[in-house]
């Protein structure tokens, strides 16, 4: 699925240059669950942004299914995100004015599906996360766990190949965390997803097939 060779990312903040990711070599296979842990500010989220085509590497090569993300045009990256990659964020990032169903539907807008097809997929996605009865609720009317379920439904409604999760349980209590990770594991198996999950929580990371550790922008793997 992913082939990273010498991938680096440098940010310019004023006159300073910050090396967020440095010389990362990484392969992620189809259907693999890779967890990445590490301390805050060591490049976990930056690497996830690169994998999600939200940002471009400044050095190296990043291939997704053989396509070099660093060389693709913005419109192609946008299309890739719309069809192939699903995101789950720590803070859920739901649109506060839209209901649960509408938030999930938002992920289908770039695909230009008809209204009926959209509604059908949204209902199925909400059903898969157990929120059918909350479809008309606004995010503010849902608990943190429910909001993250909506975010997971939004990520999966377009049936992506890749699910990228950035601290998906960071804002949840332990019980809800286990519930959400359980759900993600179930869906990972069900949808045969390639899952890359960033977390600093050992309990979450342990459930992955492979664990990478980010330190000062470089990645190493636990054996």
């Amino acid at each position, binding site marked *: 699925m992913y082939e990273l060779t010498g991938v680096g990312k440098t940010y310019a903040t004023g006159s300073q240059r910050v090396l967020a990711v440095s010389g990362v070599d990484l392969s992620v296979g189809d259907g693999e669950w890779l967890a990445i842990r590490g301390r805050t500010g060591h490049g976990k989220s930056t690497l996830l*942004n690169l994998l*999600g085509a*939200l*940002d471009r590497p400044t050095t190296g090569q990043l291939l997704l299914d053989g396509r070099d993300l660093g060389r693709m045009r913005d*419109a192609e990256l*946008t*299309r*890739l*995100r*719309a*069809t192939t990659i699903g*995101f789950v*964020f720590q803070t859920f*990032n739901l*649109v*506060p*004015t*839209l209901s649960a169903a*509408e938030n999930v*539907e*938002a*992920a289908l*807008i*770039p*695909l230009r599906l008809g*209204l009926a097809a959209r509604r059908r997929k949204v209902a199925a996605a909400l059903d898969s996360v157990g929120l059918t009865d909350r479809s008309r609720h606004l995010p503010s009317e849902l608990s943190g766990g429910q909001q993250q379920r909506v975010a997971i439904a*939004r990520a999966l409604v*377009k049936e992506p190949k890749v699910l990228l999760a950035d601290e998906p349980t960071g804002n949840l209590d332990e019980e809800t965390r286990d519930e959400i990770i359980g759900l993600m594991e179930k869906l990972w198996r069900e949808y045969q997803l390639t899952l890359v999950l960033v977390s600093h929580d050992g309990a979450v990371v342990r459930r992955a097939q492979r664990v990478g550790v980010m330190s000062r922008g470089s990645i190493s793997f636990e054996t």
Partner: protein
Amino acid sequence: MFFFTYLARELRRRQRQAVFIALGLAVGVGLVITVTAASAGVKNAQSGVLKGLYGVGTDVTVTGAAPSNSQVKPGSPSALGSGNRVSIMMGPNGAQMCVNGKCRSLKDGYTIDTLASSSYAPMNEKAASEIAALHGVASAAGGLLLTDNKTTISQNPSPPTSFSVDGTDIGKPRLGPLSDAVTKTGRTFTSADATRNVAVVDANYATSNGLKTGGTITIGGTKFTIIGTVAQPEGSNPPNVYIPLARAQSLAEQGPAGGSLKNDVNTVYVTAASAADIPAVQNEIAKLLPTATITTPSSLASEVTGSVSSAAKLADDLGKWLSILVLIAAFAVAVLLTMLAVSRRVREFGTLKALGWRGRRIIAQVMGESFVLGLLGAAIGVGLGFAGAAVINAIAPNLSATLTQSTGEHIMTPNGPLSPTSSHTVSVPLVASVSGAAILAAVVLAVAGGLLAGVFGSWRIGRLRPADALSKVG
């Protein structure tokens, strides 16, 4: 569908801010409409005053240059005769009238009645047909604006009396002062009246002088039968009496010079083919009649003084700039608030980009919201504009318009000749009216303001990289 749902929800979420932006635009738009309505009202008041002078259908008025008084030397007899060379000598032994050099004493009570063109120099009546043939001219009619002066010789002298007389081309009823008149009693002229001694009298003048349809009035020493009375628009300054042009030409003479006005006119009323043709027509006439005075409604308006003139200036200057300033302020507020609102939603837009939304789609969403706010501002603004116009109509005092015109009299004094003028002040109601064009312009302005705010607000979002947008806290 999703577009509108998202749009409506966002506006509802930011209800207070949305209302504030819409109200800001509305105040600007409302002020523009109110000022435009007031300005239109002032212009209507002005044109009401002007219509009565030259008639509703007249675009350009051509008059002969005013005769010079330098021809009459101080201490010399005044020329008040009719037809012949007549002069009146006021001496220590009483009044003497000299006709073609032969003088005799005048008896007490003798009345001299003359009809003269003292205000304007005459032009040959062919000028009207020559003007009518010019490019851009729809029609032209000649007229004689005259003054009837009555002087009674008496041991106890009383001031001379006068009234204005319009020699009307009755073959062209749509041009000239009579064109805008409404018949109150009797009738107006027909083609059969061309050579008859018949007169139509202004209703106000008739009332104040006890004149009635069927009665008579003496003009230039000749009795005319009054066939009707007419009323002119409020605020106008119409002639007192109208008679057929041919009769006016045969009775009148040219003021101090005393020449005959047969086959002459002193005014030509011109209708242009279109309003856009007026300047070209004005130029063409100037070439044809270099010494004539050419008056258009706009140039005539500058001669009207009084509060109507001040109001017109106020509406044009202060009103216009106030509207522009308020509009700019409203636009600035809308832009700043939209930018603020968008900056609070950067993370939301970053999420949408992560979901695969194109920058264009996000910009369209923001622009859609701004467009709706613009429409809302326009709707409220139109309402405010109507309310503003209603307030003006309710509280605005009547405007006064003062027209200063020559009386047509020439009086000799020991210090030299005098050509008195009369100031005619009329009270004109200010009726602020909201036009469809003003509403359309206001709607366009408000929507443009909204879209401008949207452009400024969304421009940065469209260019923001998704990773940067997602990293924003908010």
